[in-house]
C-alpha cells in the first residue's frame, strides 16, 4: 500500500510499504477514507520528538471502513464505518476502567523508553515515534487498529467524513482542554494558539458556558477564524501587551482559566524565543515553553492552566513561584479519547458545531509532502489539511 513515511527532519515521502493484517485477537484492519495532518505531526516533521526512525508511517487522525477483524473482536464488524482515536487503549487496566484512557498500562510495546524518561509510560499512539509504541500510522491506505472494540467509534451515514474525522484527535483534545477548566457562569477563558486544537478549545469553552473566550495568536487570519467560528475576542500578540490586555479585559481580575494550545514549539519573535532556541541548541532544554509561561503569569488566583499543547521533555524558566503563589491548578496530558468521542458526536449530530469548517486544504495522499510544507510555512492560509488516500 501507499503510506506517508518519515525519512528525517522536514523530509516526508509517499512510499510503498507492506499491507497491514490482523496480528492480535482484538485487532481490525481499516481501509482509510480520510486522514489529516495534525499540528503535533509538525513536531515530528521539525525533528523535535526523539525515537523517530526513517521509514516510520506517520498519521494519527484517520477514519475509514473496517475490512478485517480479529478472533476476539465483538462489537465492531467488517463493513462498519469508524473513526479511530489516536491513542490505543486496552479497556481493561486500572486506568482504562477509570476513564483515563490515554494512561493505558498495556498498549505501548516500548514502554521501557518512556519509563526511563517519565517514570511511567502512557498508552501507545499511532504514528508518533517508537517511544510512543512505534505503531504504523494512518496517513496510508490501510491501518492495523489494535483493541478496535475499545477505540473505534461507529459514525452514522448522514454525516460526511469531513464532519466526523476530527473526532480522532483535535476535537476531543480541544474539548478536554476546555472541560479541564471547570468553567463556571461568568468565566473568562483565554486560549493561547489559534491553530486547530485552539479553535476547538475556543468552541468547546463556549459550548461549556464560558461568558467570554479570548483568542491569542500572532496570525490575523487565525484570529479572524476564531471570531467567525466561535465568537471569540481576538488579541494579536504581535500588536499588544498580552498580560496588560488580559488584565484590563477582565476588570483587573485576570482570566479564570488559561489554555496553552501551542506546546513545545512556541515563539514570541522576541527575547524568549532567542533564549529558548539557544538553550535548545546547547541541548540544555528540549521544549520552548513560551505560551506556558504566559498562561501561568496571566491566570487569576486559584484559576486553572490547561495544557493540550504537546511537551516532550525539559523546560526552563517556568514561573512556578507564580503558579504556587496564586494557587493555580495545572492540568494537561494526552486526551482520554474514548471518554469524549461519543458525547461530542452527539453534539455534532445535534448541530451544535460543524468541525469541517476549519478545513482549508483538501489533498490527495500523494500530495502529503506538499501538505506538510504548506501547513508548516503558511500559517495565514493553512489551518487544516485533510488527505484522501
Amino acid at each position, binding site marked *: 500500500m501507499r503510506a506517508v513515511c518519515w525519512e528525517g527532519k522536514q523530509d516526508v515521502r509517499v512510499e510503498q510499504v507492506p499491507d497491514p493484517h490482523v496480528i492480535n485477537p482484538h485487532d481490525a484492519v481499516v481501509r482509510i477514507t480520510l486522514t489529516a495532518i495534525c499540528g503535533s505531526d509538525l513536531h515530528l516533521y521539525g525533528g523535535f520528538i526523539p525515537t523517530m526512525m526513517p521509514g516510520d508511517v506517520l498519521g494519527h487522525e484517520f477514519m475509514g471502513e473496517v475490512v478485517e477483524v480479529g478472533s476476539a473482536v465483538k462489537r465492531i464488524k467488517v463493513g462498519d464505518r469508524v473513526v479511530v482515536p489516536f491513542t490505543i487503549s486496552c479497556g481493561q487496566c486500572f486506568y482504562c476502567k477509570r476513564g483515563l484512557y490515554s494512561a493505558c498500562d498495556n*498498549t505501548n*510495546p516500548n514502554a521501557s523508553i518512556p519509563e526511563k524518561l517519565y517514570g511511567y509510560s502512557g498508552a501507545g499512539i499511532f504514528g508518533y515515534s517508537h517511544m510512543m509504541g512505534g505503531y504504523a500510522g494512518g496517513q496510508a491506505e490501510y491501518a492495523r487498529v489494535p483493541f478496535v472494540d475499545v477505540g473505534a467509534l461507529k459514525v452514522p451515514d448522514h454525516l460526511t467524513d469531513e464532519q466526523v474525522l476530527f473526532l480522532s484527535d483535535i476535537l476531543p483534545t480541544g474539548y478536554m482542554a476546555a472541560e479541564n477548566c471547570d468553567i463556571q457562569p461568568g468565566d473568562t477563558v483565554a486560549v493561547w494558539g489559534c491553530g486547530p486544537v485552539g479553535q476547538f478549545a475556543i468552541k468547546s469553552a463556549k459550548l461549556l458556558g464560558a461568558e467570554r473566550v479570548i483568542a491569542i495568536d500572532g496570525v490575523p487570519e487565525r484570529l479572524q477564524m476564531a471570531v467567525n467560528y466561535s465568537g471569540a475576542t481576538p488579541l494579536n500578540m504581535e500588536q499588544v501587551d498580552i498580560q496588560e490586555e488580559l488584565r484590563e479585559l477582565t476588570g483587573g481580575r485576570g482570566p479564570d482559566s488559561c489554555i496553552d494550545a501551542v506546546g513545545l514549539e512556541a515563539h514570541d519573535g522576541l527575547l524568549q524565543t532567542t533564549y529558548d532556541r539557544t538553550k535548545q541548541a546547547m541541548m540544555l532544554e528540549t521544549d520552548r515553553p513560551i505560551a506556558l509561561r504566559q498562561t501561568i503569569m496571566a491566570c487569576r488566583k486559584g484559576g486553572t492552566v490547561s495544557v493540550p499543547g504537546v511537551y516532550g521533555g525539559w523546560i526552563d524558566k517556568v514561573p512556578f513561584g507564580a503558579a504556587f503563589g496564586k494557587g493555580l491548578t495545572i492540568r494537561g496530558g494526552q486526551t482520554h479519547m474514548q471518554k469524549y468521542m461519543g458525547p461530542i458526536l452527539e453534539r455534532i449530530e445535534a448541530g451544535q458545531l460543524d468541525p469541517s469548517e476549519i478545513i482549508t486544504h483538501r489533498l490527495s495522499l500523494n500530495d502529503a509532502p506538499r501538505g506538510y510544507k504548506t501547513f508548516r510555512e503558511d500559517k495565514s492560509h493553512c489551518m487544516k489539511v485533510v488527505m484522501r488516500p
Partner: protein
Amino acid sequence: MATTTLARKTMQSPPTIADRSWPLTQSDTNIAMPERLGTGTLGAALALGGALRGGLAGWSLAAGGGLMLARAVKGHCACYAALGIGQAAGLTSGIVVRRSVTIDRPAAELYAFWRDLTNLPKIMRHVKSVRPMGDNRSHWVVRGPLGTEIQWDAVTSGERENELIQWHADAAALLTHSGSVAFLPAPADRGTEIHVLLSYQPAGGRAAAALARLFGSEPGQEIADDLRKFKQQMESGEMATNRYH
C-alpha cells in the same frame, strides 16, 4: 502495608531467599578485603611519594593516591556501584534483583498461570522452554548471548497456593540462582501485586555480569519487561506489538 503482609507470611515458610530481610538491606561496602588492603597500600605510597616530589605532576600523583587510599578505607567504590559489582545482598551471594508489578486480576488466576511452568516462555523473552519433570523438578532452556543456549534443572522449593512460589537451580547448574514470586492483594480493588526476587551468580563471575549490564542486558530490565508482558496478557488478553504485517 503490602510489605508487612509479606513479612508476616514468609515468617512461617522454610528459610529461603524470600525470607531474608525485606526490603533487602544494602551494605555500602562493595570492595573485598584483599583489594582494599592492596589499593590502600599503593594509594598511601603514591600519596607520600607524590607529595615529596612536589610540582604539578607530583601533587597529581599524590591526589590520585589519596583517592585510592580513601576508597580502600571506606570500602566503597563509586565505579563498582555504578556497575553493580559487589552490591545488594553482600559480597558473596551474587546479584539480587527485585521487581514488582500490579495486575488487575485475582491472585488465584495469576498464580495458576505461573504455576503451570510451561506458560512461562510465553511471557519471558529469553526462556525458550520449560519442561516439568515431576517431583517438583523442571528443565529450563534459555537463550544465552551470541545465539547460545543455557540449560539447567530447577527445583520448586516452596509454594503456598495463590500466595508464593519459590525455586532454586539444581546444584549442577552453570547459572547458580534462586528466586521467588509472591502474589499479594493490592489495596482496595486494584488487583494483585506480583513481587519477583531473583538472586544469582552469573556465568563467568562478576566481571561478565558487569559487562552484560554495561551492554544493556540488565537483569532487572529483563524481569520488568517480562512482568509487563505478563500483565498485558492477563489484563488485556494479548501482548502489545507494533508489528503490522
